[in-house]
């Protein structure tokens, strides 16, 4: 089993979700994150002070997948999340020892 983690631009969440659904992935976990990288932050202004905010809002998507599907799903996510501008984010794949569905206690592929 693999865990695919993607850090993407917030406005791309809907597209990625749709793209994954199109290839039969109907479960994902989504959370908020902030990224720091090549992308330049915004300048914010408060009275006499100007701030260059270097943490930029991102979305983290996690998808559990069978070993065989992992690389396809990475491609799907990358394609859907691409805007072509700096800051589009990263996708990584980690190996897992096990996955369990809490409701039933099923493990492995059946748990996804």
């Amino acid at each position: 089993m693999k865990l695919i983690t993607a850090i993407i631009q917030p406005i791309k969440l809907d597209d990625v979700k749709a793209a994954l659904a199109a290839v039969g992935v109907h479960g994902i976990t989504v959370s908020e994150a902030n990224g720091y990288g090549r992308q330049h932050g915004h300048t914010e202004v408060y009275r006499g002070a100007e701030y260059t905010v270097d943490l930029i809002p991102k979305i983290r998507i996690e998808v559990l997948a069978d070993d065989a599907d992992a690389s396809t799903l990475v491609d799907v996510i990358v394609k859907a999340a691409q805007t072509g501008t700096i800051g589009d984010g990263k996708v990584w794949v980690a190996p897992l020892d096990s996955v369990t569905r809490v409701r039933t206690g099923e493990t492995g592929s059946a748990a996804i």
Partner: protein
Amino acid sequence: MDSGNAAWMLISASLVFLMTPGVAFFYGGMVRAKAVLNMLMLSTAALVVTGVVWTFWGWSIAYAGNDIGGIFGDPGTGFLLHDVIQVNDDGVYTSIDTNATTYPHIIDVAFQVTFAMITVALITGAIAERVKFSTWMLFVALWITFDYAPMAHMVWNGGLLSPDGAISQWIGAAAHDFAGGTVVHINAATAALVTVLIIGKRKGFGKEPIKPHNVPFVMLGAFLLWFGWFGFNAGSAFAANGTAGYAWVSTTAATSAATLGWLFTERIRTGHFTAIGAASGMVAGLVCITPAADVVSPLAAMIMGVIAGIATCCACSLKFKLGYDDSLDVVGVHGVGGFLGTVMLGFFMANTGLFEGGDWRQLAVQLVVALLAIVYSAVITGIIAFALEKTMGWRVSERDEVMGIDMADQGERAYDFAGMSTAILKEVK
């Protein structure tokens, strides 16, 4: 001179002033978190640009100047309020009054400027989340000058649409607009619709969900509006008298009934009594009773309220069908509510309404005045909004809109609860 009336009008002006902040929060809570500051700023511009324009020439065009064609007053007579103020020997300013005035004339400037502010502020609900603050400031200046001030003159200062005006005389019944059904609500809603048609929809409108980010702010805004509306309606009696008291009471009765009307309609349609619905129902009721608060019975006020609550609740879905992005339902709430109030008054007005006196003329004059107000507002607003579109342009870039107009236009983010932001600090040169 009556100091009790003066006290009441001073506080009424202050209460009506507070309505614009009320609108700011009512609307501000309804937009997404990334656009709330822009929303609050649009109302702020309504306050401060109007505050300056009114002092220079708005007051003169609406109330002080010599009537020109029943449409507006000349801007010179009351320029910089010269007609209403004088200096005492000790250097202190006071009002120029005649024996006839029941409170100092200068207080009228105060009371009326707050009406101008709130009227233009209402329009901001339609254009939420996408317009440049700079263009909006200019719009306010032009709209107060060419739309609001003439409209106030026409309806409330003996002009074309006033009870003594040409229309009323022709139909043979005195058009009645107690506190602003036409001047404020129909006017603002028409302007809102026209502007929206010119500037276009938000990205994702009708497809993506666009949800309120802070419903308690919506409620706060609605509560402040109701509170301020006591000055709006009861203040429109221009005296601390029984009619002011009655307007207070009928306003509360109609608003209560409208809120219930909206809530039960919603319950039937969606299964829920929502907070946004309650807030909207309140505003719908307040709008509807505005032109009529002094001339309809308590029962009629409540009937008007219920009808307005039901009708505006249903009207808010129309924009999806018709495909214009009146983002926060200025047309659905203020347009429909204001029109209904103005026209239903033709049925319910004591003595002269169709149901009371059996005469159709009050109804006719109400309808005609409402329609003329729509035409005037549509034409003037259309010209202003179109000219701005072709020159400064109304909208921020699509990318800025999606990322959040607050960051793009205001250079600020509304909230930072986590306090996690790391940033590089620079002094402003």
